[in-house]
């Protein structure tokens, strides 16, 4: 029994030792799967993308050190609430449902959701989706929207963004519902050239006002820091500078 107790203690302490509690680094969580053009890994292992640059800019404005932590999208909210990360900066939409569990900073971009499908397919409205198969990523607002609004369609949920695009390309599903901006590189790519945007969705209740940084409930200090930083980079032009590199329209969605 004594050995067991000491073993248990050793395990806990070694877990503590194995952890690297870098004081005062803000850990930003994002999806472990690539999400062009917002964030993805280069082959060399570096992070790149619009959201990465915005995140880094926000940290600079807050005068903090930041660290990007990839987490499976499915588990990113639990990771936040269990203190594994300090904020979610991974294109997470601000929704009321999510606000029951976590808090959000102000938005830092907003893009509508879109449905893409092969050019040859006739889809003029949601009703046309009856009997069709639509692919979405798990735990996204697009999945919520599809489950709630697309009556009569078969919804297939995928682990990550690239996988449902791939299946659309392979012809296994008829359409994909995702963020219109993230879909853009796909539409421009070789695999996506036969697809086009069929519908765009506006539903504030499900999609929310935009994308913000997810923050633990009660962590008002961090939330204020983020909001101040967001306001600052919007004001001093850093935001526009970064956005210009990726998009030729206003991604913030009205100021």
């Amino acid at each position, binding site marked *: 029994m004594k050995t067991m107790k000491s073993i248990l203690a050793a395990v806990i302490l070694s877990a503590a030792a194995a952890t690297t509690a870098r004081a005062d680094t803000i850990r930003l969580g994002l999806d472990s799967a690539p999400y062009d053009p917002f964030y993805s890994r280069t082959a060399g292992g570096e992070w790149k993308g619009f959201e990465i640059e915005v995140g880094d800019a926000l940290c600079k404005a807050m005068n903090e050190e930041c660290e990007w932590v990839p987490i499976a999208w*499915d588990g990113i909210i639990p990771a936040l609430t269990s203190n594994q990360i300090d904020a979610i900066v991974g294109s997470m939409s601000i929704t009321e*449902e*999510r606000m029951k569990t976590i808090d959000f900073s102000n938005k830092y971009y907003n893009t509508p959701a879109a449905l893409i499908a092969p050019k040859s397919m006739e889809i003029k409205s949601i009703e046309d989706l009856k009997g069709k198969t639509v692919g979405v990523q798990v735990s996204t607002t697009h999945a919520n929207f599809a489950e709630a609004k697309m009556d009569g369609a078969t919804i297939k949920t995928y682990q990550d963004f690239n*996988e449902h695009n*791939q299946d659309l390309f392979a*012809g*296994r599903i008829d359409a994909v519902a995702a963020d219109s901006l993230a879909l853009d590189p796909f539409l421009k790519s070789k695999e996506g050239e036969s697809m086009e945007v069929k519908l765009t969705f506006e539903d504030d209740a499900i999609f929310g006002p935009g994308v913000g940084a997810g923050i633990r409930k009660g962590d008002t200090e961090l939330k204020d820091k983020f909001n101040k930083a967001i306001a600052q980079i919007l004001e001093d032009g850093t935001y526009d500078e970064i956005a210009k590199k990726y998009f030729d329209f206003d991604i913030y969605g009205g100021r």
Partner: protein
Amino acid sequence: MGEWYWLPDYAWRFVEGIGVTLELLFIALFFGFLLAIPIGLVQVTGPKWLAAIARGFCTMIRGTPLLIQLWLLYYGLGSLFPYFPELRNSFLWPILREAFPYAAVAFIISVAAYEGHIMRGAFASVPKGELEAARSMGMGRFTVLRRIWLPRAIQNVLPTLAGEAVLTLKSVPLASTITIFDVFGVGGIVRQETYRIYEPLIFVGFIYLLITAVLVVLFRWLENRVPSANRA
């Protein structure tokens, strides 16, 4: 303790999920075992080159994670589809489109490899004397297989096969990563819609526990019905 308000809303989906789970399980166990018999047998009887192929098959499948095999089949094969547009009009397309057949094939192959390895040991452990006696009584080779070799082999390894069945059941959740809605997949939907993390997982675990219990009882019953000279 915990919030379970979502249960009634999703009850029907869970029932459907159990159906998918059981379907996948039985298809895998049935066809996998059928395949395992020749795979195991050929490694004992030969010819050498066939035995080598069977052994290589078992090693390859047992040496790689089922998850990779699933993804390889579903996404790997799927990535070839755009290069063969004629496929979409063929009669195969309804099968190729769906995710279930890929999971079924992956699981059948997996069961065949693991049980093939088990059956190899099982066939090898049947005393040669019994087989020779049967032959000397004039039984044809296939009859010997059917009436002596196979039954005796199964008797010896029934507990191990039962273990394999449970392991296969526990692998079914992996199918949810290729869009199949087994019980675990349904749990994922609940998690996504309600943002509850623990309750759906516990519920899913509980359902699988129940199915495991039923499976174990089933196999125990089978073991009791099968006479075994090796039982202590």
